[in-house]
Protein backbone atom coordinates (compact mmCIF):
# COMPACT_ATOMS: atom_id res chain seq x y z
CA UNK A 1 0.00 0.00 0.00
CA UNK A 2 1.32 3.43 -0.90
CA UNK A 3 2.17 5.52 2.09
CA UNK A 4 2.12 9.24 1.65
CA UNK A 5 5.52 10.71 2.39
CA UNK A 6 5.01 13.60 4.81
CA UNK A 7 8.28 15.14 3.66
CA UNK A 8 7.16 15.79 0.13
CA UNK A 9 4.87 18.58 -0.91
CA UNK A 10 3.40 19.20 -4.34
CA UNK A 11 4.59 22.61 -5.53
CA UNK A 12 3.50 22.05 -9.12
CA UNK A 13 1.29 24.44 -11.02
CA UNK A 14 -0.50 24.38 -14.36
CA UNK A 15 -0.78 27.37 -16.69
CA UNK A 16 -3.01 26.30 -19.55
CA UNK A 17 -1.31 23.22 -20.99
CA UNK A 18 2.02 24.16 -19.45
CA UNK A 19 3.03 22.15 -16.42
CA UNK A 20 5.41 23.82 -14.00
CA UNK A 21 7.39 21.95 -11.34
CA UNK A 22 6.84 24.95 -9.10
CA UNK A 23 5.29 28.38 -9.63
CA UNK A 24 8.62 30.21 -9.99
CA UNK A 25 9.60 31.45 -13.44
CA UNK A 26 12.34 33.85 -14.46
CA UNK A 27 11.16 36.94 -16.33
CA UNK A 28 11.88 37.95 -19.89
CA UNK A 29 14.98 40.04 -20.43
CA UNK A 30 16.60 39.08 -17.16
CA UNK A 31 17.68 35.50 -17.79
CA UNK A 32 18.92 35.34 -21.36
CA UNK A 33 17.72 32.90 -24.02
CA UNK A 34 18.75 29.56 -22.58
CA UNK A 35 21.27 28.36 -19.99
CA UNK A 36 23.08 31.65 -19.31
CA UNK A 37 22.60 31.23 -15.55
CA UNK A 38 23.77 27.63 -15.21
CA UNK A 39 26.99 28.80 -13.53
CA UNK A 40 24.94 30.32 -10.73
CA UNK A 41 22.13 27.85 -10.09
CA UNK A 42 20.43 24.58 -11.02
CA UNK A 43 18.12 25.59 -13.88
CA UNK A 44 15.83 22.61 -13.26
CA UNK A 45 15.11 23.78 -9.72
CA UNK A 46 12.56 26.32 -10.95
CA UNK A 47 9.27 26.08 -12.84
CA UNK A 48 10.62 27.57 -16.03
CA UNK A 49 12.25 30.47 -17.77
CA UNK A 50 10.85 33.12 -20.10
CA UNK A 51 13.22 33.95 -22.94
CA UNK A 52 14.41 37.39 -23.88
CA UNK A 53 11.72 39.11 -26.00
CA UNK A 54 11.97 37.91 -29.59
CA UNK A 55 10.87 39.76 -32.69
CA UNK A 56 10.40 38.62 -36.29
CA UNK A 57 13.62 40.27 -37.44
CA UNK A 58 16.73 40.90 -35.33
CA UNK A 59 16.64 44.22 -33.51
CA UNK A 60 19.54 46.51 -32.61
CA UNK A 61 17.84 48.07 -29.61
CA UNK A 62 18.17 51.61 -28.31
CA UNK A 63 21.32 53.75 -28.09
CA UNK A 64 23.23 54.12 -24.82
CA UNK A 65 22.57 54.86 -22.01
CA UNK A 66 20.26 51.92 -21.46
CA UNK A 67 20.44 51.33 -17.71
CA UNK A 68 20.09 53.61 -14.70
CA UNK A 69 19.85 52.37 -11.16
CA UNK A 70 17.37 54.32 -9.04
CA UNK A 71 16.20 53.98 -5.46
CA UNK A 72 14.63 50.54 -5.11
CA UNK A 73 15.08 49.47 -8.68
CA UNK A 74 16.35 50.33 -12.11
CA UNK A 75 15.22 52.04 -15.28
CA UNK A 76 16.03 50.28 -18.52
CA UNK A 77 15.75 51.38 -22.09
CA UNK A 78 17.08 48.37 -23.97
CA UNK A 79 14.55 48.59 -26.79
CA UNK A 80 14.16 44.86 -27.40
CA UNK A 81 17.62 44.13 -28.76
CA UNK A 82 17.40 40.49 -29.81
CA UNK A 83 18.53 37.98 -32.42
CA UNK A 84 15.16 37.49 -34.13
CA UNK A 85 12.96 34.40 -34.31
CA UNK A 86 14.94 32.54 -37.02
CA UNK A 87 18.23 32.71 -35.15
CA UNK A 88 16.37 31.77 -31.98
CA UNK A 89 14.95 28.63 -33.61
CA UNK A 90 18.30 27.68 -35.13
CA UNK A 91 20.71 28.51 -32.31
CA UNK A 92 18.82 28.70 -29.04
CA UNK A 93 15.96 26.20 -29.28
CA UNK A 94 18.32 23.19 -29.54
CA UNK A 95 20.15 24.36 -26.38
CA UNK A 96 16.87 24.66 -24.47
CA UNK A 97 15.85 21.16 -25.58
CA UNK A 98 19.27 19.61 -24.89
CA UNK A 99 19.27 21.00 -21.38
CA UNK A 100 15.66 19.97 -20.81
CA UNK A 101 14.73 23.50 -19.73
CA UNK A 102 11.04 24.29 -19.31
CA UNK A 103 10.68 27.53 -21.27
CA UNK A 104 8.22 30.13 -22.49
CA UNK A 105 9.11 32.19 -25.56
CA UNK A 106 8.44 35.91 -25.12
CA UNK A 107 7.39 37.43 -28.44
CA UNK A 108 7.00 41.05 -29.54
CA UNK A 109 5.90 42.59 -32.81
CA UNK A 110 5.58 45.92 -34.56
CA UNK A 111 2.27 44.91 -36.11
CA UNK A 112 -0.48 42.33 -35.51
CA UNK A 113 0.83 40.46 -38.57
CA UNK A 114 4.25 40.16 -36.99
CA UNK A 115 2.85 38.70 -33.78
CA UNK A 116 0.89 36.21 -35.83
CA UNK A 117 3.91 35.24 -37.91
CA UNK A 118 6.15 34.68 -34.90
CA UNK A 119 3.42 32.69 -33.15
CA UNK A 120 3.02 30.51 -36.27
CA UNK A 121 6.75 29.84 -36.35
CA UNK A 122 6.58 28.88 -32.66
CA UNK A 123 3.68 26.52 -33.43
CA UNK A 124 5.57 24.93 -36.37
CA UNK A 125 8.51 24.31 -34.08
CA UNK A 126 6.31 22.73 -31.43
CA UNK A 127 7.06 25.33 -28.80
CA UNK A 128 4.84 24.68 -25.76
CA UNK A 129 4.26 28.18 -24.49
CA UNK A 130 4.54 31.78 -25.59
CA UNK A 131 4.21 35.05 -23.72
CA UNK A 132 3.00 37.93 -25.87
CA UNK A 133 4.74 41.12 -24.86
CA UNK A 134 2.04 43.77 -25.17
CA UNK A 135 3.51 46.16 -22.71
CA UNK A 136 7.14 47.02 -23.45
CA UNK A 137 7.43 50.78 -22.91
CA UNK A 138 10.74 51.12 -24.75
CA UNK A 139 9.90 50.74 -28.43
CA UNK A 140 8.40 53.23 -30.87
CA UNK A 141 6.08 50.84 -32.62
CA UNK A 142 4.01 47.91 -31.38
CA UNK A 143 3.90 46.34 -27.94
CA UNK A 144 2.35 48.86 -25.57
CA UNK A 145 0.43 50.46 -28.44
CA UNK A 146 -1.59 47.23 -28.84
CA UNK A 147 -1.82 46.61 -25.13
CA UNK A 148 -3.51 49.93 -24.36
CA UNK A 149 -6.82 49.58 -26.10
CA UNK A 150 -9.09 46.62 -25.42
CA UNK A 151 -10.55 46.30 -28.90
CA UNK A 152 -7.26 46.11 -30.79
CA UNK A 153 -5.88 43.89 -28.06
CA UNK A 154 -8.84 41.50 -28.32
CA UNK A 155 -8.40 41.19 -32.09
CA UNK A 156 -4.67 40.68 -31.82
CA UNK A 157 -4.86 37.94 -29.19
CA UNK A 158 -7.69 36.27 -31.11
CA UNK A 159 -5.56 36.13 -34.27
CA UNK A 160 -2.60 34.69 -32.39
CA UNK A 161 -4.88 32.18 -30.65
CA UNK A 162 -5.95 30.90 -34.07
CA UNK A 163 -2.39 29.95 -35.03
CA UNK A 164 -0.89 28.94 -31.69
CA UNK A 165 -2.24 25.90 -29.83
CA UNK A 166 0.15 25.80 -26.86
CA UNK A 167 -0.11 27.81 -23.65
CA UNK A 168 -0.77 31.41 -24.63
CA UNK A 169 0.19 33.97 -22.01
CA UNK A 170 -0.36 37.69 -22.51
CA UNK A 171 1.94 40.07 -20.64
CA UNK A 172 0.30 43.30 -19.55
CA UNK A 173 1.64 46.44 -17.97
CA UNK A 174 0.31 49.06 -15.61
CA UNK A 175 0.74 51.87 -18.16
CA UNK A 176 -3.00 51.70 -19.01
CA UNK A 177 -6.11 53.52 -17.83
CA UNK A 178 -8.45 50.56 -17.32
CA UNK A 179 -6.58 47.39 -16.37
CA UNK A 180 -9.77 45.35 -15.94
CA UNK A 181 -11.04 46.08 -19.47
CA UNK A 182 -7.71 45.01 -20.93
CA UNK A 183 -7.66 41.84 -18.84
CA UNK A 184 -11.22 40.89 -19.82
CA UNK A 185 -10.35 41.40 -23.50
CA UNK A 186 -7.38 39.05 -23.16
CA UNK A 187 -9.51 36.40 -21.47
CA UNK A 188 -12.31 36.70 -24.02
CA UNK A 189 -9.84 36.32 -26.87
CA UNK A 190 -8.89 32.90 -25.56
CA UNK A 191 -5.56 33.47 -23.80
CA UNK A 192 -4.63 30.82 -21.24
CA UNK A 193 -3.10 33.25 -18.76
CA UNK A 194 -2.15 36.83 -18.05
CA UNK A 195 1.28 37.82 -16.81
CA UNK A 196 1.72 41.21 -15.16
CA UNK A 197 3.22 43.65 -14.70
CA UNK A 198 5.79 44.80 -17.23
CA UNK A 199 8.10 47.68 -16.38
CA UNK A 200 6.51 51.03 -15.54
CA UNK A 201 7.20 54.14 -17.64
CA UNK A 202 9.67 56.23 -15.71
CA UNK A 203 12.35 58.87 -15.96
CA UNK A 204 15.58 59.67 -14.19
CA UNK A 205 16.77 63.27 -14.14
CA UNK A 206 20.24 64.59 -13.44
CA UNK A 207 20.48 68.38 -13.09
CA UNK A 208 23.70 69.83 -14.49
CA UNK A 209 26.21 71.11 -11.96
CA UNK A 210 25.73 74.76 -12.94
CA UNK A 211 21.93 74.35 -12.63
CA UNK A 212 21.59 75.05 -16.34
CA UNK A 213 19.63 72.28 -17.90
CA UNK A 214 19.53 68.58 -17.11
CA UNK A 215 20.27 65.13 -18.48
CA UNK A 216 17.76 62.33 -18.36
CA UNK A 217 17.00 58.75 -19.21
CA UNK A 218 13.47 57.54 -19.89
CA UNK A 219 12.52 53.89 -19.82
CA UNK A 220 10.81 51.17 -17.85
CA UNK A 221 11.15 50.97 -14.08
CA UNK A 222 11.51 47.56 -12.44
CA UNK A 223 12.55 46.23 -9.05
CA UNK A 224 11.28 46.51 -5.51
CA UNK A 225 9.85 50.01 -5.97
CA UNK A 226 7.11 48.75 -8.33
CA UNK A 227 5.80 45.97 -6.08
CA UNK A 228 2.84 47.97 -4.69
CA UNK A 229 1.74 48.90 -8.23
CA UNK A 230 2.00 45.29 -9.34
CA UNK A 231 0.02 43.96 -6.38
CA UNK A 232 -2.76 46.48 -6.99
CA UNK A 233 -2.88 45.75 -10.71
CA UNK A 234 -3.20 42.02 -10.11
CA UNK A 235 -5.76 42.47 -7.33
CA UNK A 236 -7.92 44.60 -9.64
CA UNK A 237 -7.75 42.34 -12.72
CA UNK A 238 -8.34 39.23 -10.61
CA UNK A 239 -11.82 40.54 -9.70
CA UNK A 240 -12.83 40.46 -13.36
CA UNK A 241 -11.07 37.37 -14.74
CA UNK A 242 -10.75 33.68 -13.99
CA UNK A 243 -7.76 32.62 -16.10
CA UNK A 244 -4.45 32.09 -14.28
CA UNK A 245 -2.33 35.14 -13.49
CA UNK A 246 1.45 35.08 -13.40
CA UNK A 247 2.44 37.93 -11.13
CA UNK A 248 5.65 39.87 -11.05
CA UNK A 249 7.11 43.19 -9.99
CA UNK A 250 9.87 43.54 -7.43
CA UNK A 251 9.66 40.09 -5.86
CA UNK A 252 12.78 39.57 -3.80
CA UNK A 253 11.85 37.22 -0.97
CA UNK A 254 9.39 34.54 0.09
CA UNK A 255 6.98 36.98 1.69
CA UNK A 256 6.79 39.04 -1.51
CA UNK A 257 5.88 35.87 -3.38
CA UNK A 258 3.13 34.99 -0.89
CA UNK A 259 1.69 38.51 -1.28
CA UNK A 260 1.42 37.95 -5.02
CA UNK A 261 -0.37 34.64 -4.46
CA UNK A 262 -2.71 36.38 -1.99
CA UNK A 263 -3.87 39.06 -4.44
CA UNK A 264 -4.53 36.58 -7.24
CA UNK A 265 -1.36 35.21 -8.79
CA UNK A 266 -1.10 31.49 -9.56
CA UNK A 267 2.58 31.66 -10.41
CA UNK A 268 5.21 34.37 -10.23
CA UNK A 269 8.17 35.66 -12.18
CA UNK A 270 11.51 36.88 -10.89
CA UNK A 271 13.07 39.63 -12.99
CA UNK A 272 15.29 42.36 -11.59
CA UNK A 273 15.83 40.23 -8.47
CA UNK A 274 18.09 37.97 -10.54
CA UNK A 275 20.43 40.93 -11.12
CA UNK A 276 20.77 41.40 -7.37
CA UNK A 277 21.04 37.69 -6.57
CA UNK A 278 21.67 35.56 -9.68
CA UNK A 279 20.26 32.47 -7.94
CA UNK A 280 17.24 34.21 -6.34
CA UNK A 281 14.69 32.08 -8.25
CA UNK A 282 16.33 28.85 -7.07
CA UNK A 283 16.49 30.11 -3.50
CA UNK A 284 12.79 31.01 -3.60
CA UNK A 285 11.87 27.59 -4.97
CA UNK A 286 13.71 26.03 -2.03
CA UNK A 287 12.15 28.43 0.46
CA UNK A 288 8.63 27.91 -0.87
CA UNK A 289 8.91 24.15 -0.59
CA UNK A 290 10.33 24.44 2.89
CA UNK A 291 7.61 26.89 3.95
CA UNK A 292 4.91 24.49 2.72
CA UNK A 293 6.48 21.56 4.59
CA UNK A 294 6.84 23.48 7.84
CA UNK A 295 3.32 24.91 7.68
CA UNK A 296 1.56 21.76 6.54
CA UNK A 297 0.46 22.68 3.04
CA UNK A 298 0.50 19.50 0.94
CA UNK A 299 0.08 21.30 -2.32
CA UNK A 300 0.32 24.76 -3.80
CA UNK A 301 -3.43 25.09 -4.28
CA UNK A 302 -3.97 24.68 -0.54
CA UNK A 303 -1.48 27.43 0.19
CA UNK A 304 -2.98 29.77 -2.39
CA UNK A 305 -6.50 29.06 -1.14
CA UNK A 306 -5.45 29.85 2.40
CA UNK A 307 -3.73 33.09 1.38
CA UNK A 308 -6.79 34.31 -0.52
CA UNK A 309 -9.11 33.98 2.44
CA UNK A 310 -9.59 37.69 2.81
CA UNK A 311 -9.05 39.45 6.09
CA UNK A 312 -11.92 41.85 6.73
CA UNK A 313 -9.54 44.42 8.15
CA UNK A 314 -8.46 45.42 4.66
CA UNK A 315 -6.81 48.68 5.51
CA UNK A 316 -4.96 47.45 8.53
CA UNK A 317 -1.30 48.18 8.93
CA UNK A 318 1.14 45.46 9.90
Amino acid at each position, binding site marked *: MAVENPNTVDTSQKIGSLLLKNPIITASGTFGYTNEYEE*FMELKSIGGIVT*KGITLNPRQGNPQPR*IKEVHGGLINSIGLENIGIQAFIEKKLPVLKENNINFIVNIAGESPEEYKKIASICQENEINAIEMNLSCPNVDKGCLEFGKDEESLYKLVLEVRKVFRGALIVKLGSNVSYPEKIAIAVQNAGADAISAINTVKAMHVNINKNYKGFKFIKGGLSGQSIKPLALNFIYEIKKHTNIPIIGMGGISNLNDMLEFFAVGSDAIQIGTGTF*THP*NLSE*KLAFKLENFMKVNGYNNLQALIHSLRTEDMNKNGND
Partner: protein
Amino acid sequence: MQNLKDQNLIRVSKGPFFAKVLENREISDNIYKLRIESEEIAQNSLPGQFVSIKCADLTLRRPFSVAGVRENSFDLLYKVKGTGTEWLTNLKTGDITDIIGPMGNGFSIENKKSLLIGCGVGIAPIDFFMDVLSAKSLPYKSIGCFRSKYKNAKEYDYHITEDGTSALKGKLSDYLEQIITETATEKIFICGPNPAMQYVTEYALSLNIETEVALEGDFACGTGVCMGCAIKIKKGNALESAKICKDGPVFKGEEVVWR
Protein backbone atom coordinates in the same frame (compact mmCIF):
# COMPACT_ATOMS: atom_id res chain seq x y z
CA MET B 1 25.03 41.44 5.39
CA GLN B 2 23.47 38.77 3.26
CA ASN B 3 21.61 35.83 4.65
CA LEU B 4 24.28 33.24 5.22
CA LYS B 5 21.82 30.46 5.93
CA ASP B 6 21.50 30.05 2.22
CA GLN B 7 25.10 28.96 1.89
CA ASN B 8 24.16 25.34 1.48
CA LEU B 9 22.65 26.26 -1.88
CA ILE B 10 25.97 27.30 -3.32
CA ARG B 11 27.28 24.61 -5.58
CA VAL B 12 28.35 26.32 -8.79
CA SER B 13 31.53 27.81 -10.02
CA LYS B 14 30.75 31.55 -10.18
CA GLY B 15 28.98 32.02 -6.89
CA PRO B 16 27.42 33.76 -5.14
CA PHE B 17 30.30 33.23 -2.74
CA PHE B 18 30.15 34.51 0.80
CA ALA B 19 33.74 35.55 1.24
CA LYS B 20 35.69 37.07 4.09
CA VAL B 21 37.33 40.49 3.93
CA LEU B 22 41.02 40.17 4.81
CA GLU B 23 42.02 43.78 4.35
CA ASN B 24 40.40 47.05 3.27
CA ARG B 25 42.41 50.27 3.32
CA GLU B 26 42.98 53.50 1.47
CA ILE B 27 46.28 53.09 -0.37
CA SER B 28 46.26 56.33 -2.34
CA ASP B 29 44.00 59.36 -2.53
CA ASN B 30 40.45 58.02 -2.59
CA ILE B 31 41.65 54.65 -3.95
CA TYR B 32 41.17 51.63 -1.72
CA LYS B 33 42.54 48.12 -1.85
CA LEU B 34 40.18 45.35 -0.80
CA ARG B 35 41.57 41.88 -0.17
CA ILE B 36 39.03 39.07 -0.05
CA GLU B 37 39.47 35.42 0.81
CA SER B 38 38.21 33.09 -1.93
CA GLU B 39 40.14 30.21 -3.35
CA GLU B 40 37.64 29.77 -6.20
CA ILE B 41 37.95 33.34 -7.45
CA ALA B 42 41.72 33.49 -6.84
CA GLN B 43 42.34 30.29 -8.78
CA ASN B 44 40.03 31.04 -11.69
CA SER B 45 40.63 34.71 -12.41
CA LEU B 46 42.56 36.14 -15.35
CA PRO B 47 43.79 39.72 -15.69
CA GLY B 48 40.94 41.79 -17.17
CA GLN B 49 38.16 39.71 -15.62
CA PHE B 50 35.92 41.20 -12.94
CA VAL B 51 33.84 40.26 -9.92
CA SER B 52 30.56 41.83 -8.75
CA ILE B 53 29.85 42.65 -5.14
CA LYS B 54 26.49 43.12 -3.47
CA CYS B 55 26.72 46.51 -1.76
CA ALA B 56 24.30 47.54 0.99
CA ASP B 57 20.68 47.21 -0.19
CA LEU B 58 21.38 48.42 -3.71
CA THR B 59 19.55 46.66 -6.54
CA LEU B 60 22.62 46.31 -8.72
CA ARG B 61 25.90 44.71 -7.82
CA ARG B 62 29.07 46.71 -8.34
CA PRO B 63 31.70 45.31 -10.73
CA PHE B 64 35.45 45.57 -10.05
CA SER B 65 38.47 44.29 -11.99
CA VAL B 66 40.55 41.72 -10.21
CA ALA B 67 43.79 43.50 -9.28
CA GLY B 68 45.84 40.51 -8.15
CA VAL B 69 45.58 37.02 -6.68
CA ARG B 70 47.36 34.74 -4.23
CA GLU B 71 46.60 31.09 -3.51
CA ASN B 72 43.34 31.69 -1.67
CA SER B 73 42.65 35.41 -1.86
CA PHE B 74 42.36 38.19 -4.39
CA ASP B 75 42.59 41.98 -4.47
CA LEU B 76 40.33 44.68 -5.86
CA LEU B 77 41.03 48.37 -6.22
CA TYR B 78 38.18 50.81 -5.97
CA LYS B 79 37.78 54.52 -6.19
CA VAL B 80 35.06 56.00 -3.98
CA LYS B 81 32.48 57.38 -6.40
CA GLY B 82 29.00 56.76 -5.02
CA THR B 83 26.75 54.87 -2.62
CA GLY B 84 28.15 51.44 -3.44
CA THR B 85 31.83 52.25 -3.09
CA GLU B 86 31.19 54.41 -0.02
CA TRP B 87 29.54 51.40 1.59
CA LEU B 88 32.57 49.31 0.68
CA THR B 89 34.89 51.63 2.62
CA ASN B 90 33.13 50.55 5.83
CA LEU B 91 33.96 46.86 5.38
CA LYS B 92 36.26 45.58 8.10
CA THR B 93 38.54 42.58 8.33
CA GLY B 94 36.37 39.55 9.00
CA ASP B 95 33.21 40.98 7.40
CA ILE B 96 31.52 38.76 4.84
CA THR B 97 30.89 39.92 1.28
CA ASP B 98 28.45 38.46 -1.24
CA ILE B 99 30.41 38.17 -4.45
CA ILE B 100 30.11 36.58 -7.91
CA GLY B 101 32.78 35.93 -10.48
CA PRO B 102 35.14 35.86 -12.18
CA MET B 103 33.15 37.24 -15.11
CA GLY B 104 34.00 38.23 -18.67
CA ASN B 105 37.17 37.63 -20.65
CA GLY B 106 40.70 38.63 -19.78
CA PHE B 107 43.71 39.92 -21.73
CA SER B 108 45.53 37.59 -24.14
CA ILE B 109 48.69 36.16 -22.66
CA GLU B 110 51.30 36.13 -25.44
CA ASN B 111 55.05 36.07 -25.86
CA LYS B 112 55.29 39.56 -27.36
CA LYS B 113 57.10 42.67 -26.20
CA SER B 114 54.09 44.06 -24.40
CA LEU B 115 53.41 47.53 -23.10
CA LEU B 116 50.90 47.58 -20.26
CA ILE B 117 49.18 50.89 -19.56
CA GLY B 118 46.92 51.68 -16.63
CA CYS B 119 45.34 55.09 -16.08
CA GLY B 120 43.84 56.00 -12.71
CA VAL B 121 41.93 53.17 -11.06
CA GLY B 122 42.22 51.43 -14.45
CA ILE B 123 45.58 50.30 -13.11
CA ALA B 124 43.79 47.39 -11.35
CA PRO B 125 43.86 44.77 -14.16
CA ILE B 126 47.32 46.03 -15.22
CA ASP B 127 48.73 45.30 -11.73
CA PHE B 128 47.35 41.76 -12.00
CA PHE B 129 48.62 41.38 -15.58
CA MET B 130 52.12 42.43 -14.52
CA ASP B 131 52.16 39.64 -11.90
CA VAL B 132 50.98 37.04 -14.42
CA LEU B 133 53.49 38.01 -17.11
CA SER B 134 56.32 38.17 -14.56
CA ALA B 135 55.45 34.69 -13.29
CA LYS B 136 55.58 33.36 -16.86
CA SER B 137 58.79 35.30 -17.61
CA LEU B 138 57.13 37.01 -20.56
CA PRO B 139 58.55 40.35 -21.73
CA TYR B 140 56.68 43.53 -20.78
CA LYS B 141 57.06 47.13 -19.66
CA SER B 142 54.47 49.05 -17.68
CA ILE B 143 53.12 52.59 -17.57
CA GLY B 144 51.03 53.99 -14.72
CA CYS B 145 49.32 57.34 -15.37
CA PHE B 146 47.78 59.29 -12.51
CA ARG B 147 46.80 62.81 -11.50
CA SER B 148 49.13 62.61 -8.53
CA LYS B 149 51.74 60.07 -7.41
CA TYR B 150 50.09 56.70 -6.90
CA LYS B 151 51.16 55.15 -3.63
CA ASN B 152 51.17 51.47 -4.38
CA ALA B 153 53.72 48.79 -3.62
CA LYS B 154 54.14 48.18 -7.37
CA GLU B 155 56.87 49.87 -9.39
CA TYR B 156 55.92 50.91 -12.90
CA ASP B 157 58.64 51.30 -15.49
CA TYR B 158 57.10 54.67 -16.35
CA HIS B 159 55.15 56.50 -13.64
CA ILE B 160 53.51 59.56 -15.18
CA THR B 161 51.68 62.17 -13.07
CA GLU B 162 49.89 65.34 -14.11
CA ASP B 163 51.19 67.23 -11.08
CA GLY B 164 54.78 66.01 -11.43
CA THR B 165 54.91 64.19 -8.08
CA SER B 166 56.54 61.23 -9.85
CA ALA B 167 59.54 61.03 -12.17
CA LEU B 168 57.58 61.87 -15.31
CA LYS B 169 55.39 64.99 -15.29
CA GLY B 170 52.66 65.43 -17.83
CA LYS B 171 50.28 63.25 -19.76
CA LEU B 172 50.47 59.84 -21.39
CA SER B 173 50.50 61.47 -24.83
CA ASP B 174 53.68 63.41 -23.90
CA TYR B 175 55.64 60.17 -23.50
CA LEU B 176 53.90 57.44 -25.50
CA GLU B 177 55.89 57.79 -28.73
CA GLN B 178 59.22 57.77 -26.87
CA ILE B 179 58.27 54.79 -24.71
CA ILE B 180 57.06 52.72 -27.66
CA THR B 181 60.35 53.34 -29.47
CA GLU B 182 62.45 52.69 -26.38
CA THR B 183 60.74 49.41 -25.56
CA ALA B 184 60.28 48.18 -29.16
CA THR B 185 56.63 47.53 -28.27
CA GLU B 186 54.84 44.81 -30.24
CA LYS B 187 51.50 44.91 -28.44
CA ILE B 188 49.75 47.35 -26.11
CA PHE B 189 47.29 46.50 -23.33
CA ILE B 190 45.44 49.39 -21.72
CA CYS B 191 42.76 50.07 -19.14
CA GLY B 192 41.63 53.60 -18.32
CA PRO B 193 39.20 56.31 -19.37
CA ASN B 194 37.79 55.94 -22.90
CA PRO B 195 39.56 59.01 -24.35
CA ALA B 196 42.94 57.61 -23.24
CA MET B 197 42.17 54.17 -24.65
CA GLN B 198 40.93 55.67 -27.91
CA TYR B 199 44.04 57.84 -28.24
CA VAL B 200 46.39 54.92 -27.61
CA THR B 201 44.47 52.56 -29.90
CA GLU B 202 44.49 55.03 -32.79
CA TYR B 203 48.13 55.95 -32.33
CA ALA B 204 49.15 52.26 -32.10
CA LEU B 205 47.10 51.47 -35.19
CA SER B 206 49.05 54.10 -37.14
CA LEU B 207 52.22 52.23 -36.18
CA ASN B 208 50.67 48.84 -36.91
CA ILE B 209 50.86 47.80 -33.28
CA GLU B 210 48.10 45.57 -31.91
CA THR B 211 46.10 46.70 -28.87
CA GLU B 212 43.73 45.21 -26.34
CA VAL B 213 41.54 47.50 -24.27
CA ALA B 214 39.53 46.77 -21.10
CA LEU B 215 36.25 48.70 -21.32
CA GLU B 216 33.81 49.80 -18.66
CA GLY B 217 30.04 49.89 -19.16
CA ASP B 218 26.78 50.23 -17.25
CA PHE B 219 25.01 46.91 -16.93
CA ALA B 220 22.55 45.31 -14.57
CA CYS B 221 23.57 41.66 -14.86
CA GLY B 222 27.24 41.03 -15.63
CA THR B 223 26.19 37.90 -17.51
CA GLY B 224 25.23 39.39 -20.87
CA VAL B 225 21.49 38.98 -20.49
CA CYS B 226 20.30 42.53 -19.72
CA MET B 227 21.96 44.05 -22.81
CA GLY B 228 22.51 47.24 -20.85
CA CYS B 229 26.17 47.49 -21.88
CA ALA B 230 25.74 46.54 -25.55
CA ILE B 231 28.18 48.28 -27.90
CA LYS B 232 28.98 47.97 -31.58
CA ILE B 233 32.22 46.34 -32.57
CA LYS B 234 33.80 46.11 -36.02
CA LYS B 235 34.12 42.63 -37.49
CA GLY B 236 35.62 43.10 -40.93
CA ASN B 237 33.32 45.54 -42.68
CA ALA B 238 30.31 44.72 -40.56
CA LEU B 239 29.20 46.04 -37.18
CA GLU B 240 28.17 43.52 -34.57
CA SER B 241 26.54 43.94 -31.20
CA ALA B 242 28.68 42.91 -28.25
CA LYS B 243 28.13 43.04 -24.53
CA ILE B 244 30.98 44.62 -22.56
CA CYS B 245 30.33 42.37 -19.55
CA LYS B 246 30.11 39.05 -21.38
CA ASP B 247 32.00 39.42 -24.69
CA GLY B 248 34.52 41.79 -23.06
CA PRO B 249 35.44 43.65 -21.00
CA VAL B 250 38.63 43.09 -23.02
CA PHE B 251 38.33 43.80 -26.76
CA LYS B 252 40.81 44.25 -29.57
CA GLY B 253 41.34 48.00 -29.75
CA GLU B 254 40.80 48.19 -33.51
CA GLU B 255 37.35 46.56 -33.18
CA VAL B 256 35.94 49.17 -30.82
CA VAL B 257 33.70 51.90 -32.21
CA TRP B 258 34.65 54.87 -30.02
CA ARG B 259 31.84 57.31 -29.37
